[in-house]
């Protein structure tokens, strides 16, 4: 039970400020930062995936779905793996070969979709360290505690993780006119 504040007692009132109101509608999952033993939140992933749980369509484990037939029908024909330049990665590098509902680490340990950052961290250790501390990635909600941060897959599509080049969102036409008055 929380302590009941006695009226008239010699207590200092601090104004509490929280970023909770900005993330009320967001389903959250807790993440522990072992480095300084703090807790923060990331958005729930499984609720966001359209085709989750996978057993809505798939009844077999991934290892039994592999085929060498180039003309065989693909369940995810629209997904193209463009992650790392060569041929190092395959579906089963990240997706569990034994259970379609899980991701996997390289030691075959099954990982929940809500903890996908652990899969990324195997290779991207420095980025993971920066992300846990708060130097990499975005804060959702606000600056005030509790911290709610975007996780890896909220910004990077794991199949095509690079951000694309594009035109800037705006151009200051006054300045462009000043430079080139024609």
């Amino acid at each position, binding site marked *: 039970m929380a302590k009941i504040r006695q009226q008239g007692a010699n207590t200092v009132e601090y104004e509490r400020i929280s970023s909770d109101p*900005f993330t009320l509608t967001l389903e959250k999952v807790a993440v522990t930062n072992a480095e300084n033993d703090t807790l923060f939140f990331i958005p729930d992933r499984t609720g966001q995936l359209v085709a989750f749980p996978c057993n809505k369509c798939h009844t077999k484990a991934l290892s039994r779905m592999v085929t060498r037939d180039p003309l065989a029908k693909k369940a995810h024909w629209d997904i193209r793996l463009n992650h790392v330049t060569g041929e190092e990665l395959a579906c089963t590098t990240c997706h569990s070969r034994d259970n379609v509902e899980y991701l996997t680490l390289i030691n075959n340990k099954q990982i929940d979709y809500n903890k996908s950052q652990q899969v990324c961290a195997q290779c991207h250790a420095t*980025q993971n360290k920066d992300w846990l501390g*708060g130097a990499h990635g975005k*804060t959702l909600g606000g*600056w005030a505690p509790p911290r709610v941060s975007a996780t890896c897959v909220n*910004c990077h599509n794991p199949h095509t993780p690079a*951000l694309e080049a594009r035109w800037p969102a705006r151009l200051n036409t*006054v300045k462009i006119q000043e*430079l080139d008055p024609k």
Partner: protein
Amino acid sequence: MFFNRKKKQNKKKISPAPLAGSAKSNSCQQPGDGFDQVINKPLNRRSAVKGLTAGLLTGAGLLNSACSLTSGEAGKGLASLKWEEYFKGNYQLMTPEEKEATVKRLEKMYELANGGKIKISAKGAVKDVLYGYAFNISKCRGYMDCINACIEENNQDRNSQMQYIRIHEFKKGQMNFELADDNFYHQVPAAGHFYLGTQCFHCENPPCVNVCPVKATWKEKDGIVVIDYDWCIGCRYCQAACPYDGRRFNWSAPHVPENELTKDQHYLGNRLRKKGVMEKCTFCIQRSRNGANPACVEACPTGARIFGNLLDPNSTIRWVLENKKVFRLKEDLGTEPKFWYFMD
């Protein structure tokens, strides 16, 4: 009278948040609101004649419009509100009640003039908070989503395309601002280039505040450097004093389309400015004092912008300062900006 008012303000030492009651008892120090500072000031013959003449001139004009037969009920209200606004004091000297009153007047004036309703806040600094900002130059890709968000949130003039944030494009290998391209016009990120954004750095030792002749700009307790738009005389000394190009001047009356107006406003933040006053980034004071991130931080698609409380040891900004190699611009000037740059 106009000149007289500002001149007096300059000479007087500004004491933080004086009580309204003390204004009458201590006439030589003269705290209190604009009414006390202007109307109830001790008079000698010289200032009395000067004040009377100027007062009659302005008063006659305002009264004329207020009592005109042709103007309706709404016009009358607007004129008397304008009259009260004209004689209000420096925001720093206002009591909480006076702050509330001026905010209510401004809301009402907007409603009478434009029909729509706005909400202006006079919320003070949150206790135990000092705002700090970090910018990752390895992550910024020059998309400029931050600038768009800033313009919308802070009701900046659309005609002059005023922007608080500038994104500079540098060729990798050097960081000379004279060689940077601030008006790049191509797909980003360009190969072999990096991007760095500047805005007001909210210095701990702000040179812009020291030069203001009317004390219309100051540093708040949470470290945000703010401007009282109604006290600013538009001399632009602060713009000249700022070593970072952080301040902007309204050469013409700012224009914001009604449907694009951000209606959640703050007296020291994004409320509508007028012609001839300074403005700049306020770390979105109307958002940050409620616990939200500034609009630029929220809009950044790359996560290059990090904002937080420097006094909270568990905040992300503190982690960046403690674990990354950070630098600030023109550190040799001793301005102590609360805006750090870092690389991955």
